[in-house]
């Protein structure tokens, strides 16, 4: 209890070495890097589709129908002699676009509504009953109903998937906010006199950001899968547009005869979803400040 003690403790070197930044930890995580690279590759494929696989993917050439994968047709051809490689490359555009737009809109709305819902009881009571109502319908039925009502188009798919996917995301955000709002740092911030808006921005949002990012990656994969499912059952994008889901619809009739028609679009779909889920998992680990310290 002497002055010398006080000085000694105060001068004690700051304990831990500088924690590595998020980027440093990200590049050291092979799963994160690999899944991210895969997604970038798919994104580049979608952007540069006309360069990678030039020509109209819908062009029919019955002479070469059911050609197995080979030098001329990497992924073979389908029942109408269309190049499956071209279909997969061009199909990524619709698939990823739908996934991205649905994720951005539904996560954006879910974040705003979830923050309000978790923080203000009055908003919560009303909003959560509405969400309960939405979630009472099975997702695919709700999406099908919405898509059937609006008619087949990309915008239809986006709207109906957003309606379906917003509820689970909203619940995730709200649940996190409910936990964070009880944290002592929130009370400390209020005691300091930090305005509510700033508490949202500097305290609550950063604390719920990692679950939001993780959820976003899962929503992305759900949207990609949802688009495929809607297109597969014929209420998604129109039959003249191509997406991986659309490609699978027709291909299923020839699964025993020409399995490559199914395998390649299916594989593209699977790899995208796998990459998104792995990225989500690694982000969850990397963004957790407590887990981060252990590395």
């Amino acid at each position, binding site marked *: 209890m002497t002055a010398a003690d*006080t000085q000694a403790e105060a001068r004690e070197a*700051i304990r831990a070495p500088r924690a590595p930044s998020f980027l440093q930890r990200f590049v050291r995580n092979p799963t994160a890097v690999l899944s991210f690279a895969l997604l970038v590759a798919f994104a580049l494929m979608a952007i540069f589709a006309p360069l990678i696989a030039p020509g109209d993917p819908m062009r029919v050439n019955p002479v070469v129908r059911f050609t197995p994968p080979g030098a001329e047709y990497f992924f073979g051809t389908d029942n109408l002699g269309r190049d499956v490689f071209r279909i997969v490359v061009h199909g990524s555009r619709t698939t990823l676009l739908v996934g991205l737009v649905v994720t951005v809109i539904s996560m954006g709305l879910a974040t705003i509504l979830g923050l309000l819902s978790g923080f203000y009881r009055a908003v919560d009571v009303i909003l959560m009953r509405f969400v309960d109502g939405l979630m009472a319908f099975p997702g695919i039925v709700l999406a099908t109903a919405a898509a059937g009502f609006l008619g087949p188009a990309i915008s239809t798919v986006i709207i109906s998937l957003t309606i379906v996917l917003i509820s689970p995301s909203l619940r995730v955000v709200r649940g996190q906010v409910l936990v964070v709002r009880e944290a002592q740092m929130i009370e*400390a911030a209020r005691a300091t006199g930090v305005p509510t808006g700033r508490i949202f921005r500097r305290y609550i949002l*950063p604390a719920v950001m990692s679950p939001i990012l993780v959820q976003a990656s899962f929503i992305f994969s759900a949207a990609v899968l949802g688009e495929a499912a809607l297109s597969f059952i014929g209420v998604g994008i129109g039959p003249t547009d191509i997406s991986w889901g659309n490609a699978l619809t027709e291909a299923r009739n020839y699964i025993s005869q020409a399995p490559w028609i199914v395998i390649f679009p299916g594989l593209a779909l699977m790899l995208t979803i796998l990459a998104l889920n792995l990225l989500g998992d690694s982000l969850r680990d990397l963004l957790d400040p407590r887990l981060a310290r252990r590395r």
Partner: protein
Amino acid sequence: MSAPALLETKGLTKSFGNVKAVRDVDLSIPRGSTFGLVGESGSGKSTVARLVLRLIEPTSGEIRFGETDLRALKGDKLRRQRRKMQMIFQDPFGSLNLRMTVGETLTEPQSVHGLGRNDAERRARGEALLAEVGLPAAAMDRFPHEFSGGQRQRIAIARALATEPELIVADEPVSALDVSVQAQILNLMRDMQAEHGTTMLFISHDLRVVQYMCDQIAVMYLGEIMERGPRHRIYEMPQHPYTQALLSSVPGSPKEDGKRAKLKGEIPSAHSVPSGCAFRTRCPHAFDRCKVEVPVMHQLGEGQEAACHLLDR
């Protein structure tokens, strides 16, 4: 007692549903003094801390801060009032934002209250605050998890000082720390108080800590004040059986001689506060009257007062 009170409460009461956590608490904290609030866990001390800072809404009662009626303030007026009253929490890890650097933590109170002309000025003040609590300026760009518990509590103290408050409420500020660090933090807080003349409401369950820190002491039990007075009166001639029992339970205290009754059992639940005197179920001297009548405060001189029927005799 002669100095005007900076913080005053009258009949402060807080109920959570039908649980009365705090009942009729009257406090008067003279400007520049350190007022200790002691009691076991569950006695309502922390609730009082949050009530006087208007972090939770009282069920009834008055709170005056200088000339200001705190209960009449709301919204932005209340927020701006907070510049003058800051808080130090028990757990320095929980009360700091782990995603903000120490620099951000120390400049934020200044910027939200419009102190300092620009970021550079606020940052300079942040560094000065760090120096004051004995941390190097290099700490500014680091995150809370890079510090030890004692260092984190120093950061929390620096944050509380950032707005130059008139009142600091410290809720068990050292109970989460190692005993060896406790003394250092207590010394730091005493130095700070001496330097800035800050008034302090110091809440603790640890009688030795309170004795070291406080000029005036109030003993709480089940949401009520049992006894209060200047430090020497409370420690040398406690009049309430509860205060006596608490003091004799301090390890190594000279009063731990078996003559005074030890506390038996646990503090009752606030759901079922005993009738009459709240302490009667554990009081070694309880008699019939304690069951039916709530004891009133008896003035015992030098500002000491205690609520016990024994003092009627």
